[in-house]
C-alpha cells in the first residue's frame, strides 16, 4: 500500500516545524543541534516525495547532498560544542551570551 504523496509532504512539513520549534524552545545546544538535523531530514523527505511525484531522479540525488552536508555539520558542530563545553562547562545556549548589543 502506498501512502499518497500529500501525506508525505505533510509529514515533512510537520517534522520541519517540530525541528523549528525545537530550535526555538530547547536550551541545550545539543538538542538544538538535533532539532536542526530533524529539519534537514524533513527536507530529505520532501525531496524524495517530490522526486517520486515528478518522476525525476534529481530529487533522490539531492538527498545525498543534504545527507553529506548534515553529516559535516554534525562533525563540525559537535567539535565546537565540545570546545564550548570545555571552555564554559555548559552547553546551555542561554548561558552563552558574552556577546551582545
Amino acid at each position, binding site marked *: 500500500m502506498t501512502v499518497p504523496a500529500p501525506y508525505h509532504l505533510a509529514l515533512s512539513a510537520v517534522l520541519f516545524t517540530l525541528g523549528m520549534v525545537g530550535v526555538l524552545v530547547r536550551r541545550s*545546544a545539543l538538542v538544538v543541534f538535533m532539532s536542526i538535523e530533524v529539519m*534537514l531530514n524533513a527536507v530529505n523527505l520532501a525531496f524524495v516525495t517530490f522526486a517520486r511525484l515528478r518522476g525525476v531522479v534529481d530529487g533522490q540525488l539531492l538527498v545525498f*547532498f543534504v545527507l553529506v552536508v548534515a553529516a559535516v555539520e554534525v562533525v563540525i558542530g559537535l567539535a565546537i560544542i565540545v570546545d564550548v563545553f570545555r571552555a564554559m562547562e555548559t552547553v546551555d545556549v542561554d548561558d552563552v551570551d558574552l556577546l551582545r548589543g
Partner: protein
Amino acid sequence: MSTADLVLVGPELVLTIAAVVVLLQDAWATGGVLEPQTPRPAAVWGSLAAVGLALVWDVGGRRWGPAFGGMYVRDQFTMIADLAALAAAGLGILLSSAYLPRVRLPAGEYHALLLLATVGAMVMAASGSLITLFLGLEILSFSLYVLAAIARRSRRSLEAGLKYLLLGAFATAFFAYGIALIFGATGSIDLREIGAARPSRLLGAGIALLTVGLAFEGALVPFHAWAPDVYEGAPLPVTAFMSVVAKVGAFAGLLRVFPLALAHLAGVWGPMLAAIAVVTMILGNLAALFQTNLKRLLAYSGIAHAGYLMIGVAAGGPAGTWSVLFYLLVYVAMNLGAFGVLLLLARQGMEADRVEDLAGLSGRAPWAAAALVLFLVSLAGLPLTAGFIAKLYLFRAALGAHQPVPALVGVLTSVVSVYYYLRVASAALSGGAPQAVAVLRNRLVGAALVLATAGVLWLGLFPAGFTAAVQQAARQAAAAVR
C-alpha cells in the same frame, strides 16, 4: 565529467588542492602542535601562491561555458565574483600573517579553511543549479564556522562559532527546504529551467525559503542577528575575511537566483527585496551609531552594506546586477583595508578593537592613519573613493528600475553612516596615543594595505575599465539565462 569541465573549475580546484596541501604540510611541519608560536611562511606563501594561480587561471584563462551538465557555469559574471573572492582571500592571507603567530592560531587550519571558504563563495557565484548553490553555501559557511571558533581558548571566539553554527544551520535548513519546494514546483533544480517554469504558489514558497538562506549569509535584516556577535567574537583576521567573503558568496548567489534566473518575476521579488534592503540599511546604520567596539561597529556597518548591495539586487536587470558586482569588489578592498589597519594595532598583545585604541595613530603611523581615513571615507560613500562610485551605480540602478525609495533611504542612511565612520577617523587623527596600544610593523600587512588603498583609489578615480567589465559580465549572464 570531462577534462573541459576540470579546466573550467580549475580555480576552485587549485584552491581546494592547496587547502589540503597546506593543512598536511603544516601538520607535518609542526608535528600537530595546534598553537604554534612561530610564523608559518610555508602556509602563507603556499596559500598566496594558490590564490595567485587561481587568479591567473580565472582572469587570464578566459574560458567560458557550462560544466557538469550545466550545474556549474563559468562566465564573466563568475570571473568578476571570483576576482572579488580571490581578492578577499589574498588580502585576508596577507593581513593575518602578523596576527596568527602573535595569538598562536593554527596556521595550517586557518589557511586551509580560508581557501575553502573562498572556494565556497566561488562555487556559489558559478552555480547553474540550486544544488551547486547549496554546496557552495555550505562549503563557505562550514569553513567560516570553524574559522570563527578557531581561537579555541577564547570564550568569545567559541561563542561566536557556536552561534554562527547553530543559526547558520537553522537557516540552511530553510534554504534546503526551499530547494525542495522549488523542485516540487518545477521538477528541476536547474536555474534556467526554474526561470522558465510557470509561477505557482509552491514555487513562491520555495523562493521565499531560498531567500532566507542567502539573506542569512549576507546578514540581511531580519536574518542578521548573528553577525554582530560573530564578528565581535571571532579573531580579528577571521572577522575581516568573513565580513567580505560571505557577502561575495551570498550576493553572487542572490544575483544568480533573482535578477538572472527569475528575471520575469521581478515585479514580485523586486519590492520584497527592496523592503529588505530598506530595513537592513536603516537598522545597520542606526545600530552602528554608538558602538565603541570597532569590530562590532564594522559588523553593523557590514549589515548596512548588505542593505546597499540589496538595492542593486532588488533593482534587478543588468544595471542592478553589474552595480552589485562592482560594489562587491569595492567592498572587499575598503572593508578589508579598514580591518587591516586595525590588525596593525595590539593592546597588550591582544586585539585593539576599541575606538579609543586608535587615538593618536596619525602621530605614530601617519600612512596607516591616512589609509584608514581613506577606507572609512570610502565606506561612508564619499566622493573621490570607490565607495562613492559604487553607491552611485546602485542608486542609479534603483532609479532606473523605478525604485526611488531604496535609493532615498540609501543616501540618507549613508549620511547617518558618516557619523560613525568619521568619528572613528577623527579618533585616529587626534589625541594622544594610549600607552597600552602598540603599532606593529609588518611588510605583508603593509602590502595588503597598499593594495587595498590602490584599489579604493583606482576604482574611485578611474572606474571606467572595471565598469565596462562588470557591465559586459552582467549582459552576458543575463543573455545566457534568457
